[in-house]
């Protein structure tokens, strides 16, 4: 099974892996202590993990169970999702719409040449 998780989601999984099955409330408490996340943040991340199939939820008390062992998790590749984030400002949106094309090797050389020429 190919499950990709982001760092923040891995933090949630780490709690499950080290403490075994536990409630969402407990995960939230642990992460509040450890990282300073509030309950909403942790719950959002737990739900994402459920959606990705990394966690199974059971009632009562929103019990969480890790569906995959630590060894099988892959790091999600950042680049695929970055494009979807424009931190709310239109210039980022523009950047996303108009460019976000990786600079080619020649273009980077050209920029470096500008630097050395103007030095």
């Amino acid at each position: 099974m190919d499950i990709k998780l982001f760092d923040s989601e891995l933090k949630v999984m780490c709690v499950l892996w080290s403490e075994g099955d536990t409630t969402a409330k407990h995960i939230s408490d642990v992460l509040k202590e450890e990282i300073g996340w509030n309950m909403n943040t942790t719950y959002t991340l737990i739900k994402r993990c459920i959606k990705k199939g990394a966690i199974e939820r059971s009632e009562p008390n929103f019990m969480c169970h890790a569906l995959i062992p630590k060894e099988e998790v892959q790091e999600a590749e950042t680049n695929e999702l970055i494009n979807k984030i424009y931190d709310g400002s239109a210039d980022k949106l523009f950047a996303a719409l108009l460019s976000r094309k990786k600079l080619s090797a020649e273009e980077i050389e050209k920029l470096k040449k500008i630097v050395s020429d103007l030095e």
Partner: protein
Amino acid sequence: MTLLEVSFSGAIFIIAVVMIRAVAINSLPKKTFLVLWEMVLLRLIIPFTIPSAFSIYTLINHNISTPAFFEAETNNAASAVSREYFMMIQGMGQPVTDIPSVSVWFVVWCIGMILFAAFFMVSYLRCRIEFRAALPVNNPYVEQWIKERPLKRRISIKQSDRISTPLTYGILHPVILMPKQTDWENTEPLQYIFSHEYVHIYRFDTITKLIATYALCVHWFNPFVWVMYVLFNRDIELACDESVIKQFGDKSKSAYSLMLISMEAKKSGLSPLCSNFSKNAIEERITAIMNTKRTTITALLSACIIVFVTVSLFATSAMAQADNKANDTPVISERKTTTSDDITDKKSAMTIIHESADILHYEDGAPYIHDILTNNTDSTIVETQYCMLAYSENGSPLKLYWNFLDSSTESSFENIVRTKANILSNQTEEYRGGWSLYDGEIMGDFLKVGNGEANQVAYSLLCLKQVVFEDGTVWNNPNYENWFKEYAGKEIDIDELQSYYPYEYKIESN
């Protein structure tokens, strides 16, 4: 000013700044452009005008006799839009439209604005939710750096695997968010990055960007405002770079530029739309950094002059616009934008004036009272009813046989007359004869009235009691009774008799 007028003059202002920017981007302090863009923002957001003799619009009005070009257009098409725009700004609720075609544009504008605002808000909130899940950074260099900042606001530095370039968010509790790949051991690029973000935090650039986004949402239909938005955001970065370079000295220019290039190279690809837009931006940025010079007095002075001249030319409006309009376009009164205040002003200014009432004599010496009325209302007078009183040379009230042709008449102080005579709006009544008086000595061939004595009337006071207008409205003088009590049968001072005219009646419209 209407929204379209604001947007139009904003566009002119933007074109001017873009031109200055193209010519002088590398020779002026970058702060200059920030100030200019902020002025543009004020122009776009605040609907007030600052009249100035130096305004480009004053100059245009003086040189070209047809400023009607955009005034006429905006008056007709945009006045209603703008009225609603201001109402909305003032939170005054329900827009009122009398012209349906205008309200279509208003609705289109409104929908556009809401869509853009919603888009920016949603993407902002999504990011904030995402950033909340960022992870803390435990690094002695970072902790030391934060400790060294004197800012009152608590800055925190976090990292996330969801971003590829460093960014800053939050106003009261600013957070510098670093990509996961950051090399925390290599402190030289770190100090540049942190310093750059710190300048953003220190200058409250988040708020500036927010205001710019607001202006963009309001003026979404104006392509020049989009240009402004893009260039303003670039210039914020350039000004930030400039202040980092100043902080670290000229030697840092190359290292800083190379760091930016390597960060740019790390950025993700995968965009279907390709253009040179952002590549130009990075090139512009690198060139600007490499060209950063120490700010000389000359540069500072020319920056101040440029800002002053540009702002006074483009941020202001024509002086005494109303006067110009009145001269250029006599049909001004047809404008439908008059507010209810204007109407009351206009009505309260309406008067009828009794210019004079003189005792004149016919060729045979028979006396008569001749009065002149001016109609300063906006409709034709068709009938007047007024009271006449007569006084002797000494100011004593006289009892007269006013209707001396009727033998049964009694003498009285007052004579109330009703006349049908048309007086057009804003006209002074032409000579139309007068009220004949009895003079026993001259008019010997008439039936003798009273004791048949000679006329003693030297002064006559007249007061309108009622006026009927063409449209059938009737004005009753509310002061008539007071007037009558004050004068009828009373001894009146000669000075007052002589200075009674012109006597003005204020017409309160119904």
